[in-house]
């Protein structure tokens, strides 16, 4: 492609000369530019001639090279003279004003640790406040929906419930089953030492119904559905769909959030029931290996757990579901601009949800022990 790359500096009539020839494009410009700059710095106090007689073609990078040579700061009497440049290229190079390039942009100076801590704290406080306000809005929307059932977009709620519930069933079943297997096996190994293998059934039953069923399902739900809520609503925010909803005089909370809250409130307890059943079944499978038959397991289970255990678990599941959905929707609605912001909204949904799940689970533990449930 390049037949004439005579870009070496040459001595001709005592004046240092840079010859630019052939085609100068992005692919070929780098060495030409480098050697030209070397020639310039080797001769700081002598005038330089740039001979462009044989220059056939330049692209943007070639133009930048010409511009750079022409406008580089040189000491007086050592200017760069470009000769025999095709008039159209010369005109093009002239079309940029060097004064335009003087001002260079600087990124804002980095802030100190104290200020960073302050900012993060302020952001967390503001976030907490917003979250509370949002929960209030959600409650208002739910109460409104209770009184005016037609304002709820049931079609959307059912679609969300299908996606978040039915389609999440395989993963919830898998996790629930494995949870049952793991706790049964771990505790049975210890219980065998004391000849108390049969009481492992109590442990599995209570742990699955009260704690692990709701907890693991909630974590799966946060990762799978909470993040999806944030990403969906975040994308709608980025695409100005949320603005369109607002300018129609509609409330985005009622329009986007309410169906998801309702779907989550229904679907998470249902998923927990499935997780409980397969978890307990997983425990039974393990207990066969410890000489506890299905019948023994069943009878022991009936003495160990009652309706209260199930109800406590389902109550937790309901609260977890609503909180996760609210966090996902909230993060979605506060998404900034751009694809990265959507990703951040999804990530922060999962992190915040898991923190809240654990905190709420702790609160539940205190509350339940006080109430002797």
């Amino acid at each position, binding site marked *: 492609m390049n037949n004439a790359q005579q870009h070496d500096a040459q001595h001709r009539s005592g004046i240092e000369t840079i010859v630019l020839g052939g085609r100068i494009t992005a692919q070929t410009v780098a060495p030409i530019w*480098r050697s030209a700059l070397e020639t310039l710095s080797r001769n700081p106090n002598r005038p330089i001639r740039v001979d462009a007689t044989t220059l*056939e073609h330049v*692209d943007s*990078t070639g133009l930048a090279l010409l511009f*750079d040579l022409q406008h580089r700061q040189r000491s007086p009497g050592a200017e760069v003279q470009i000769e025999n440049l095709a008039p159209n290229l010369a005109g*093009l190079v002239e079309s940029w004003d060097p004064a335009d390039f003087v001002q260079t*942009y600087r990124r804002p100076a980095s802030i100190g640790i104290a200020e960073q801590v302050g900012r993060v704290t302020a952001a967390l406080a503001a976030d907490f406040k917003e979250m509370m306000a949002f929960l209030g809005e959600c409650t208002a929307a739910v109460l409104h929906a209770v009184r005016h059932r037609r304002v709820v977009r049931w079609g959307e709620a059912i679609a969300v419930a299908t996606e978040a519930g039915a389609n999440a069933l395989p993963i919830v079943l898998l996790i629930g089953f494995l949870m049952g297997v793991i706790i049964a096996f771990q505790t049975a190994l210890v219980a065998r030492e004391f000849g108390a293998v049969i009481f492992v059934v109590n442990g599995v039953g209570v742990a699955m119904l009260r704690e692990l069923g709701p907890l693991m399902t909630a974590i799966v739900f946060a990762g799978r559905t909470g993040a999806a809520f944030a990403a969906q609503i975040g994308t709608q925010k980025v695409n100005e769909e949320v603005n369109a909803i607002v300018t129609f005089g509609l409330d985005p909370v009622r329009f986007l959030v309410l169906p998801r809250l309702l779907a989550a409130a229904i679907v998470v307890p249902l998923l927990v029931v499935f997780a409980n059943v397969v978890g307990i079944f997983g425990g039974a499978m393990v207990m066969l290996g410890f000489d506890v038959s299905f019948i023994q397991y069943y009878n022991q289970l009936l003495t160990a757990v009652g309706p209260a255990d199930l109800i406590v678990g389902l109550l937790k599941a309901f609260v977890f579901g609503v909180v996760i959905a609210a966090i996902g929707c909230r993060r979605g609605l506060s998404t900034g*601009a*751009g694809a990265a912001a959507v990703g951040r909204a999804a990530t922060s949904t999962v992190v915040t949800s898991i923190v809240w799940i654990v905190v709420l689970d702790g609160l539940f533990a205190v509350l339940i022990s006080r109430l002797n449930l």
Partner: protein
Amino acid sequence: MTTERAPAISVRNLSIGYGKRVLLEKASFDVHRGEILVILGGSGSGKSSMMKNLIGLYKPLAGDALIDGQSIVTARGETRAQLQRKLGVMYQSGALFGSLTTLENVRFPLDEFTDMGMAEKNLTARMLLRQVEMGHAEAFMPAELSGGMLKRAGIARAMALGADILMLDEPSAGLDPITAANLDRTILSLRENLGFTFVVVTHELTSIFTIADRAVMLDPRSRSIIADGKPAELRDHSDDPRVRQFFNREPDAITTKVET
């Protein structure tokens, strides 16, 4: 350089569409070197789809598209990447990378494909941005730019690698009249002075009459090219009433009958 080169782009019996929905059947036209060709047609006539087929993003239903005499439809791997690098593309929304500043976006192809020094790359990128009047916005993130600014930065990025052929998807839609006119001037100047070939998808009539050497008009109903020629001639002398209607910006005749 040889004097007799293949057309910049040669479209041969190209059928495009999505699955069973055919947008265009057996379209053929050439884009000559140094030409500014405008692809036009109403909304939904397949202009942008045509462009994406020429770039090799979509696979045509049938037919072939040649870049510099080489098929982009059948090319694979590195050959295909090399062909695509001959094309500078500006997408309808600008398609800037959201994680990079405007300047870094324009510098991106130089970072990837050249071994130029940082100062040189920055100078080139800044000159390109000034060419599209975006110098003031070089430090902004794409999320902070308006639609028109995104487009202009997109054009600067498309030009960065010195591709011979620039493909612009609706460059002047959404720009204010002054900026749009400046952009037209920039396009003409680039062709004149740097010998770029342009394929421009647009339906801005003013822009078409200012820049286009030739216009190819797609028609969604007949799924074919219904006009190919100089815009002014098509406006004044086309046999096809739809073409004249388009160029003269006339509304459809009011009919009470439902069209079949």
